[in-house]
């Protein structure tokens, strides 16, 4: 299953809820203001890194770059573009959007 997170973890609990309620082996994609959850050295980095051990994580590069975060993303989170986003949606059986 694919989970998307589009809210900043500092602003809403979307990321936390997502991490708690997603299964091992699922994919998590950070988009829009959700990309602030994909950054290193923040209050939430450890939580995300822990979850990465069992889940595959992606971040939408256009949203990262818009926010000037291109050098701050946690190592191991894969950057994808809009085409990659579509591929993920097609590949996974269902999508849950943590709004």
């Amino acid at each position, binding site marked *: 299953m694919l989970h998307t997170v*589009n*809210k*900043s973890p*500092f*602003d809403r609990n979307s990321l936390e809820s997502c991490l708690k309620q997603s299964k091992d082996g699922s994919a998590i994609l950070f988009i*829009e*203001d959700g990309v*602030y959850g994909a*950054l*290193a*050295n*923040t*209050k939430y*980095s450890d939580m995300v890194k822990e979850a990465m051990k069992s889940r595959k994580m992606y971040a939408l*590069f*256009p*949203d990262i*770059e*818009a*926010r*000037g*975060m*291109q*050098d*701050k993303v946690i190592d191991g989170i894969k950057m994808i*573009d809009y085409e990659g986003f579509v591929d993920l949606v097609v590949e996974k059986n269902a999508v849950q959007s943590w709004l």
Partner: protein
Amino acid sequence: MNETTGGIAMDDESEGTIKKFMYINRKAPYGTVYALEALEVVLIAAAFDQDVSMVFCDDGVYQIVKGQHTKFIDVKNFSPTYRALEGYDVEKLYVSKESMDERGLAEDDLLVDVEIVDNAKMADLMEDQDVVLSF
């Protein structure tokens, strides 16, 4: 004009007196329209020659991070406009230390000169205002 003066009527009594206006920015730049709206209000209201300051706290600190490139999300990159504030005599920019720390950001990540202040100082600054506008 009330919308840009925080409800302060520009009547004879208030004309000529300088009030302290503070704009508080708490939202990230592109997910919502708050940041851009606040910036526009500040630029318009700068014509009133008041004592203006801006605060960037919580996700608002992300508004003034360097290196923003919005070409691929097809939204205007308004971050360079923060550097025009000085020309509008908006020179007091306060950034929350705690908000920076939580996000792993340093002063060097920011595209304008700011004063970094802690929560206690921020509370003092807010207390000192005549008008506070929240975004």
